[in-house]
């Protein structure tokens, strides 16, 4: 392919100067919106994404009520100004699908059985978009859920990997996503050791698939540390600590 030559040079350096297994810079912040029950903001490469959580609250329309668990609703939306050419604000086919996969990535972590007959809403708004916005959205949304104080088995963290030619690379940006040969977004629950999202496009050999999948998990764990830090900074003002104190007399 003519395009692939430019994406990664003979020294293995990518367009933005990264090596094959490096991440773009990530910034995470928790509790950024006053009127949401929980919120988070993520900057991941050129991605700028807000996630907000509302609820648990009453379900409307009433016929959607689930008697034994919460209804987790999720909306992934790209702002009209988030891309070069104005995007129609109406949810596109792509956004509807991403909303669905984000919901499914999060629902396995949220203990929906603890909130019967309620709705929990997750809003992921992409203010500026780059490659890998769904995994960035998942990463931010799980922080927003934790901020909202909803019972969760684990945080969810996403990372994408992919192919440039036959080279496996981590964390594709927008150009690499479009010009490259494959994209593999993966979301994991790092403490549980479970995968909650796995999508693949492109043609992979068995070895490349294995390599990309394992790389995505490794990088996901790296991002999990940043997630932790963002959450502990918000609630404990720094690293989570453990102290021994004398039991107070009752």
């Amino acid at each position, binding site marked *: 392919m003519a395009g692939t030559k430019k994406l990664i040079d003979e020294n293995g350096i990518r367009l933005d100067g990264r090596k094959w297994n490096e991440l773009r810079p990530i910034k995470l912040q928790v509790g950024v919106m006053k009127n949401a029950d929980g919120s988070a903001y993520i900057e991941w490469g050129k991605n700028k994404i807000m996630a907000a959580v509302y609820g648990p609250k009453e379900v409307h329309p009433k016929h959607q009520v689930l008697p034994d668990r919460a209804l987790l609703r999720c909306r992934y939306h790209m702002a009209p100004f988030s891309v070069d050419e104005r995007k129609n604000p109406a949810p596109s086919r792509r956004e509807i699908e991403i909303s669905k996969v984000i919901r499914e990535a999060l629902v396995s972590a949220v203990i929906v059985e603890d909130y019967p007959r309620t709705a929990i809403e997750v809003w992921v708004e992409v203010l500026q978009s780059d490659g890998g916005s769904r995994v960035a959205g998942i990463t931010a949304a799980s922080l927003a859920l934790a*901020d909202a104080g909803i019972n969760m088995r684990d945080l969810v963290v996403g990372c994408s990997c992919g192919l440039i030619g036959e080279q496996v690379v981590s964390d594709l940006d927008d150009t690499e996503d479009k010009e490259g040969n494959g994209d593999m977004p993966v979301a994991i629950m790092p403490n549980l050791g479970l995968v909650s999202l796995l999508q693949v496009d492109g043609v992979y050999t068995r070895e490349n698939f294995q390599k990309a999948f394992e790389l995505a998990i490794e990088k996901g764990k790296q991002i999990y540390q940043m997630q932790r830090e963002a959450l502990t900074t918000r609630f404990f003002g720094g690293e989570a*600590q453990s102290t021994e104190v*004398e039991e107070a007399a009752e």
Partner: protein
Amino acid sequence: MPMIQRKQVIPGDVVAKGNYRYGSYIEKRGEEYVALRVGLAEVGRDEIKLNPFTGPYLPRTDDEVIGKVIDINGFGWVIDINSCFDGFLPASFVFGRDFSPATHDLSSKFRVGDILGTRIESYERSRDPQLSIRGEGYGKISSGEIVKISPTKVPRVIGRRGTMINLISEKTGCDIRVGQNGVIVVDGSPDGIVKAIKAIRLVEEETHAPDLMSKVEAALGGGVVGGN
């Protein structure tokens, strides 16, 4: 000398391993006890507790809650108790056994917009919580200022055996009622109310500061009312 270990945890963190009794917001996975919320875990000799830092109010039987009447139907009052479920106060709890929608006028007792101090009579997963006003001090609250705080911070505002709330109450000369749902009614002189609300906000902001009592005491001070 019994020691307890305090751990700051986030969802997914292992609080302890072994064999313990454990409360809400903790899940047992094999040998491990895992936190489900952001909060402060306390690992005692044979018991683990987790005090969450954020979260919604979920009703519990026998909680005292302060709510607002939002609707009246033939059989009782629907009350907003600052939760994802609305409370229901059946008319028969107020008018007695011989209540009949034909002879009793519900709006003569409580109207939409009234603030009530109530107790949760019963709550189960399948139905909305049922409220009652039986008992001393329950019923309509006719004066005061309403303050809402995060329900997870209610225990700190009350303090150990009510010490914090008594301190604020004494220093400001206000009557303060705290609902477990995070709704607080402060009643007293205008200056006192302002001071009391400031103190409550201070507790809310610095919930986990060491020696919060003396901080609040200093903020309330013996100073002039109206002076900072």
